[in-house]
């Protein structure tokens, strides 16, 4: 794109209003470095992993694999039904030292399903960076780290799944607190789930009032209300946020928003 010749387009200058593009700030809203990085990572993943190919490759797993998986799960379900339905068997004669089996409470206890033979990956068949494997025995802190890594790759749902695991594993831990705030942000910004985000932020505020992420959580409550269109609740949340955190970096924007919401 070459610079326009002088006098082109009737020559009337508009430099006092519209200026040539540069790398300065605006008119797009400011974006945090973290979000910028996440956006770039996601674009890179999408561009490099889904390089356009003339005949579009199907992204579904092959039929044999789907059929196999269906068989495995059907078999597991059948085994579970059979286990519930079968009459009580007399204790088998022990030919080798018996392994004590825990007493089961009739049908109240879920029957563990046999694990599928091996995991399979549907998306990202050729990951360009070492794939993040989630260990069943991971500590909450490890899970948080993995979730953050997934998040930086733009794998929002996978990250959300890990945040939820952290919360379930130790609901009152510091890691769960961080996961709640992170999950709220993820739901609000990427998963289109403002109601879920509100719940997570509110839980974080309730369970650790004044915690280290209190400004983010309280501001998140206001943002979630805003996304839900509840301006009265948003104004209340902004008021609480400003009372408790008047010097937060988010306070200027919050005051301006509160002024917008206040009747003249």
């Amino acid at each position, binding site marked *: 794109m070459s610079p326009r010749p002088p006098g082109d387009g009737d020559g009337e200058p508009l430099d006092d209003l519209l200026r040539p593009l540069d790398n300065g700030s605006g008119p797009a809203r400011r974006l945090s470095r973290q979000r910028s990085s996440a956006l770039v990572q996601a674009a890179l993943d999408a561009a490099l992993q889904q390089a356009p190919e003339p005949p579009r490759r199907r992204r579904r797993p092959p039929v044999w694999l789907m059929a196999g998986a269906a068989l495995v799960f059907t078999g597991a379900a059948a085994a579970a039904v059979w286990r519930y339905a079968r009459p009580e068997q007399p204790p088998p004669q022990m030919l080798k030292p018996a392994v004590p089996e825990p007493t089961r409470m009739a049908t109240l206890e879920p029957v563990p399903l046999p694990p599928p033979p091996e995991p399979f990956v549907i998306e990202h068949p050729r990951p360009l960076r070492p794939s993040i494997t989630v260990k069943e025995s991971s500590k909450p802190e490890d899970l948080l780290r993995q979730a953050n890594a997934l998040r930086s790759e733009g794998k929002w749902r996978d990250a959300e799944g890990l945040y939820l695991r952290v919360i379930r594993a130790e609901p009152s831990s510091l890691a769960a607190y961080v996961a709640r705030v992170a999950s709220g942000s993820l739901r609000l910004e990427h998963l289109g789930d403002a109601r879920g985000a509100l719940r997570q932020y509110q839980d974080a505020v309730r369970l650790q009032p004044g915690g280290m992420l209190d400004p983010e959580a309280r501001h998140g409550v206001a943002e979630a209300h805003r996304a839900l269109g509840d301006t009265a609740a948003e104004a209340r949340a902004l008021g609480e946020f400003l009372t408790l955190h008047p010097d937060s970096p988010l306070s*200027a924007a919050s005051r301006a928003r509160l002024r917008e919401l206040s009747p003249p």
Partner: protein
Amino acid sequence: MRSSGSHATVAPRGEDARLTAAMRGQRDATESLLLELLPRVRNLVRYLVRGDSDVEDIAQESLIALVRGLPTYRGDGRFHGWVDRVVVRTTFAWLKRSRGREARYSGDPVELLAVPSDEAPADEYLHRRHLVALLDRLSTEQRHALVLHHVLELSVQEISTELGVPFETVRSRLRLGRTALRALASDGESPEGESS
């Protein structure tokens, strides 16, 4: 007139290696390049579309288009010019795909905040936010003509080619757009909501 993006050096010589590496598909180099280009990409997208809500989506599509297009960049023009062209085309394609969505745009709240910035003084940011709020009130045709001409510094002939409309139509859109923008700007709209 300030120095323009189009006039800016493409990739300073010291960065040629990074660009070359990115063109070869090296992830680190590409990531570094995209991070640097992102503000420019987002700003251009915002100039072209109404409201803020779609900017990130279109910017991300533009980044993807840039990554995929890098191997085809021949280095025979200004790199930023090539980037701008890719972003413009991606944005136009997105607008074409989502035709009708703009009709639902009811105006984002004008957010004129004194946001501190590393890159530009707050009043410059405010000026630009105010300006795009005015652009949001122009017709899409006039807006695109103004942005391509005054922001990207394309000639009328280039805009005519880019948009696929006659030369005189572009001139007419520019004339009408300028008049409308000046009228909006002189309406005495003080930046409402400007914070202390």
